[in-house]
């Protein structure tokens, strides 16, 4: 039996004495003898550890578990309320600030740019002015140089 195989067997089975083959090998191999001896130390040590008396739960153990459960429930709900409360405060602040800004800033002037609605209206005016032709569909097949304006392009001025 080779040393490797022998040690694998010991590691897997953790035998008290080992089969005859192990004993035979160990008798003639100093290194494996040391290996088996160390294993013996661990085995005896584990046995001693397993025999050690385990501590008993102290009186009122279950009551304390329930109290801790109660406390953690309180902690959880307090934490939730705190978090929710903080959010409400933030939201109120943001809302108040927005309202303040809306009231404080002038409705026209250098500080205030055009609103989206105003931009839209300006664009619409430009379009209806007819200065830019609006293409609908493909260019005509006659390869005309001038684009064709839609039939009812609105009330725009003529170019």
């Amino acid at each position, binding site marked *: 039996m080779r040393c490797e195989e022998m040690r694998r067997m010991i590691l897997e089975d953790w035998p008290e004495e080992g089969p005859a083959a192990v004993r035979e090998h160990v008798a003639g191999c100093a290194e494996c003898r040391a290996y088996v001896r160390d294993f013996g130390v661990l085995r*005896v040590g*584990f046995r001693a550890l*397993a025999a*050690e008396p385990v501590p008993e739960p102290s009186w009122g153990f279950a009551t304390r578990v329930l109290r801790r459960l109660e406390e953690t429930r309180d902690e959880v709900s307090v934490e939730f309320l705190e978090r929710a409360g903080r959010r409400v405060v933030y939201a109120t602040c943001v809302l108040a600030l927005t309202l303040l800004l809306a009231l404080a800033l002038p409705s026209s002037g250098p500080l205030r740019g055009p609103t989206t609605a105003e931009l839209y209206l300006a664009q619409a005016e430009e379009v209806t002015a007819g200065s830019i032709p609006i293409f609908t569909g493909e260019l005509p097949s006659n390869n005309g140089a001038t684009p064709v304006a839609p039939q009812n392009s609105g009330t725009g001025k003529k170019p």
Partner: protein
Amino acid sequence: MGSLPAQEAQEVQWVERAQRGDREAFGLLVECYQRRVMSQVFRLVRRRDEAEDLAQEVFIKAFRAIRSYNFRSPFGAWLSRVAVNHCYDYLRKERASRISYHWQMAEESVRRIEAQAENPQGSRLDPEQQAALRDFVGKLLDRAPAEDRVVLGLKELEGLSVEEIAEILKLNRSTVKVRLHRARKRMLEDLKRWREGR
């Protein structure tokens, strides 16, 4: 004392009530299992001063997770899994802060322990040597990775079979065997290092 099926039926009832949030029923389960959990926690963590606190945390975790228990395995096995996972997390965190021991053992004690290991029927260790050996192997265990400590603790200290460990850790038998093999090998290497550095 009632018969076993009656006790089991009672336990199922308590678990069902606890699953609906009944703390009183959960308290009865704690009463039933507190010794077992405490022993398991102590054997895995080996900290007398922390065992009770950790055992309490196991029950708190168990209560929070009790709805995930599906009655397929015994409640005790499920609770063991919660305990083992909690200890594993604790050991993983604790190991980072664990100091490397430079441990001394009297030559005489070493000689006696080795002699006993070679011949278990031979001269018995006196209580002092027993304590020295416990301390020694305990410290070797402290230095081991959390994974090794859990599997060795369940096998060598709790005395569970490979099948029972596989059930608790949700692993197959061969994986448990491989882990045991690796854990023993690593401990042995550590023992060799100690011997060489002595």
